């Protein structure tokens, strides 16, 4: 990672000790340095939430927008100047609850932006309330006897809405995460990376997941690589989260346009 991508005068960051957001941010900066992008041509857009503080620590141009409205802003930036690499950093609630509609419609339109979801399974900034990605039966501030609702599967949601690159990774597997972030940024079309992070202060404490170190190393136990999971039965995968690349369609938009022209 290039340290000059960080605004070192703004550090230390405001995140709690052991927060996973810093690890996702580091992986993103690593991916940008590996791609050798021009720092002047990278724009980070964020909404509201713990994760949305991330662009403020980087030396790139960034926009801190309204809650959930990061994707429309990013769409506008991309339309105004298509040479820019526009990356949206958003949290699980910001992306799937408040900005859920924007997410599915950006995926449907196949806007050439990258969405990185810092998924810590709850609303960290406001005190650990349940988000649409909080797993069933998990304890949060608003679900003290366990979450009654089923969570969204963000990967299937984005795939169903028509995203052309969808991947999921965890912060324990940093090399895997950097790899998929790199692919997502260089992908032409809508790309989404669900980066499973951790919130040791709220989600971890309420659900007795142990210290930040235990939470991060436990990802080895409950995450399965996609090529391993494809060979297993659905019963064996109960309670596990599959990580890897789910969708990677190159030139989808062009194929649609060509097919429509042939028909007419």
């Amino acid at each position, binding site marked *: 990672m290039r340290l000059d991508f960080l605004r070192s005068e703004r550090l230390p960051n405001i995140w709690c*000790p052991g927060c996973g957001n810093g690890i996702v941010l580091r*992986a993103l900066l690593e991916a940008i340095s590996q791609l050798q992008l021009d720092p002047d041509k990278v724009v980070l857009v964020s909404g509201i939430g713990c994760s949305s503080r991330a662009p403020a620590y980087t030396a790139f141009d960034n926009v801190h927008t309204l809650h959930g409205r990061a994707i429309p802003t990013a769409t506008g930036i991309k339309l105004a100047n298509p040479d820019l690499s526009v990356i949206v950093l958003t949290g699980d609630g910001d992306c799937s609850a408040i900005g859920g509609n924007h997410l599915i419609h950006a995926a449907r339109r196949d806007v050439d932006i990258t969405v990185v979801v810092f998924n810590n399974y709850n609303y960290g900034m406001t005190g650990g309330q349940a988000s649409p990605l909080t797993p069933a039966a998990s304890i949060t501030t608003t679900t003290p006897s366990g979450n009654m609702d089923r969570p969204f599967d963000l990967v299937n949601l984005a795939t169903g809405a028509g995203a052309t690159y969808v991947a999921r990774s965890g912060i324990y597997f940093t090399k895997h995460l950097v790899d998929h972030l790199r692919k997502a940024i260089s992908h032409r079309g809508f790309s989404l990376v669900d980066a499973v992070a951790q919130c*040791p202060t709220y989600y971890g404490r309420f659900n007795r997941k142990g210290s930040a170190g235990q939470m*991060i190393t436990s990802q080895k136990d409950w995450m399965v690589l996609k090529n391993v999971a494809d060979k297993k039965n659905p019963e064996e995968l109960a309670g596990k989260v599959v990580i890897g690349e789910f969708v990677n369609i190159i030139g989808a938009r062009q194929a649609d346009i060509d097919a429509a022209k042939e028909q007419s």
Partner: protein
Amino acid sequence: MPERKSYKITHYRKWCKNCGICVAVCPKKVYEIDRNDRHAIVHPQDCIGCQMCVDHCPDFALTVEEVKDE
């Protein structure tokens, strides 16, 4: 037998929040939590330069560099 490489671990104490992630992820137990609940580099000679602690530090507080003999 090839000579063992040695690594220099730099720890920016100003940025570190003592979350203990480096203690948990290090495969060679280079770090330990000391009695003041702060993490400390106790066995720097065991470091194999795998960069696990660097990649997992949320506060950008660690760097590991190979020491090159002149």
